[in-house]
């Protein structure tokens, strides 16, 4: 009941607090330097898979009517389901690879924190559940849009309507609960690197020059340059 809200608060407050207090530690913490070959076969399927799967959930949440309209044609429904499932499988393959690499490569183990394992296992459970649900409880894209999206929106409107959810099979409930758990611990894991994804790279010039002080202003006796902060820290 209260879990979604606890999760949301932890997510928001935790992220802000983490960034403010220990911003230095926000990093993707890549271990490719220590082991690169196995990482390729794990990291790439995982990341591309989860980007698509997450985007799918997000679209179904935001524009359920669009999904339902798309699904009105059975062929299109099938295409959507199979695509989603395939990317889910790619996530699973990637995650298993990542976890195996983490546990068996001695160098990578040295840079593994307990939280890395916790989050990887939670994600693994989540992906396994998702794939099972996709297979056993068809057609997920339709009932997500029809039943879960309203539930999620009711959460947003601070008026939780859980009847639809409580009537669902336990696996689906577990999937939902696990999702909120992941959100709740998000700020305390390496997942924070998602929030600093470098999209701003696309619209900046390649070279960056930073001046500690404004060169023109500093020569003018009229400007109060001493009140400004340096721009590179």
């Amino acid at each position, binding site marked *: 009941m209260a879990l979604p809200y606890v999760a949301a608060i932890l997510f928001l407050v935790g992220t802000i607090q983490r960034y403010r*207090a*220990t*911003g*230095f*530690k*926000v*990093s*993707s*913490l*890549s*271990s*490719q*330097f*220590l*082991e*690169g070959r196995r*990482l*390729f076969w794990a*990291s*790439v399927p*995982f*990341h*591309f898979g989860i980007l698509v799967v997450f985007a799918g959930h997000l679209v179904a949440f935001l524009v359920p009517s669009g999904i339902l309209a798309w699904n009105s044609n059975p062929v299109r429904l099938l295409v959507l389901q199979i695509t989603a499932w395939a990317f889910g499988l790619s996530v699973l393959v990637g995650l298993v690879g990542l976890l195996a690499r983490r546990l068996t490569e*001695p*160098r990578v*183990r*040295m*840079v593994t*924190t307990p*939280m*890395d394992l916790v989050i990887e296992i939670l994600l693994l459970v989540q992906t396994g559940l998702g794939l099972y649900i996709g297979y056993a409880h068809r057609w997920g894209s339709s009932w997500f849009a029809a039943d879960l999206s309203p539930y999620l929106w009711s959460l947003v409107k601070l008026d939780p309507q859980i009847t639809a959810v409580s009537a669902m099979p336990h696996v689906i409930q577990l999937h939902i609960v696990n999702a909120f758990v992941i959100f709740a611990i998000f700020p*305390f*894991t*390496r997942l924070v*690197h998602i929030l*600093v994804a*470098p999209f*701003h*790279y*696309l619209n*900046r010039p*390649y*070279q*960056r*020059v*930073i*001046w*500690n*002080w404004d*060169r*023109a202003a*500093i*020569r003018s006796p009229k400007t109060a*340059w*001493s009140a*400004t*902060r*340096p721009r*590179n*820290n």
Partner: protein
Amino acid sequence: MDVRAQISMVFHLDKCIGCHTCSVACKNIWTDRKGAEYQWWNNVETKPGTGYPGKWEDQEIYKGGWEREGAGSIQLKGAGKAKGLANIFHNPHLPSVEDYYEPFTYNYLNLIEAPPGDDQPTARPVSLITGKPIDVKMGPNWDDDLGGSPDYARNDPNLEALTPAEREAMFQLERMAFFYLPRICNHCLNPGCVASCPSGAIYKRGEDGIVLINQKVCRAWRMCVTACPYKKSYYNWHSGKSEKCLLCYPRLEAGHAPACMHSCVGRIRYLGVLLYDADRIQRAASAPDGEITRAHLDLILDPFDDQVIAAAQRNGVPDSTLKSAQNSPTYKFVKQWGMALPLHPEFRTLPMLFYVPPLLPVMASVTQTDGAQKERLNPIAKTWTDDWLYDTSTEELWGTIEQARFPLKYLASLFSGGDEKAVAQPLKKLMAVRIYRRWKTVGDIDESRVDEVLKDTGLSRDSAEAVYYLTALAKFQDRFVIPPAHREQALEMLEFTGDTRGSQGFGFLERPERGA
């Protein structure tokens, strides 16, 4: 004209004795930490050799630097917006720890604590990453002094420029020669590392051109490691941040020379301000292949020119910096005398560390003689043993340069993107100064010959004397002309840093530790 100041360096390779004092000085100050053990912001390589990381010059492997495309625009070879973001989950061109070496220490405690037994206790090497015993296969200077030549020296990427016969000639035992190549970050004008950083964590300081990585903003996307063709940006596997040479900026701001330069035993290092025209950087970096060195050197402006001075002042360059630029030893070597060249200009990052190419192995040649021939040799020549002639004759003015033990092609591949004329010039000047000094001190050379060589190289007697002074006698203040940092104006520099000693970077209030 957008005049800016750059703190630049000149390394005089003739003087480097390969002692690695510079590397150790740097290591002790900056990289004596977990995750940075393998990093040598300053390293010294033996040439010919593969260097550190192995074969770093081979951009077919590492994809560093910029590439010129048909239309004359340049692109990062292995990074950039499209390639960098597409490869962000796994960078196919990232060197791994094996390409450098696995950092190790020895289990010294075992020497003391081993229980009594029949065998002498040993200190086994253990990995600094895993703590487990390892077989050490590689170190940062494994190929020192041509050690392991078949594996290292013969795989030097610069040998590509030579014919197989020339290559064989270089490795004949009697002709074997080598020199040292100390390397630090070049603090480039068109840095690949800055351009490749998706987070925008790397920047060039406007005031002095030092290229730095903001440790707080770095998120370990590790593109800079690929994009720097000199492999001078390193990934700290422990903290999850990339790091690089910072030209000891805290020392520079306090008026001290960088640690590697201060400690340099051979006194090969010079540091000073160069003024350059930032408006022309892009054009210079995209110059056609053969013209890149000239375009690069053309960026550097004359600090005595009134127009340059006026433009610099308009740009806020302090007068004290202008004065340093006028006294700069690097300006003398690079522009005034034309004796120093950038390392691998064809990488197009416009490096601001210049090298005086080495002449030493060229000076003498060793030939087998029949003892009788000795009598007929000119008086300057010396005999080594009865049958071997160690010939230091300077009679053949430029012949010795063309028949150098290092084929000019090899040096050209290092210092001028293959342009042999461009490397021959500084070598001739080095030779000319020697001939001039020999005439002055030993007196066994004709004055007319001296005038001839000086005229040929465009040096006056005064400048030859000045080259000699700066090469052989220069004092600390001559070698390092450090512009005042104007701490009173630069707020960044006022931050108290004492509390973060022994840690990473400056200006933190947070302990720089690895995240979860």
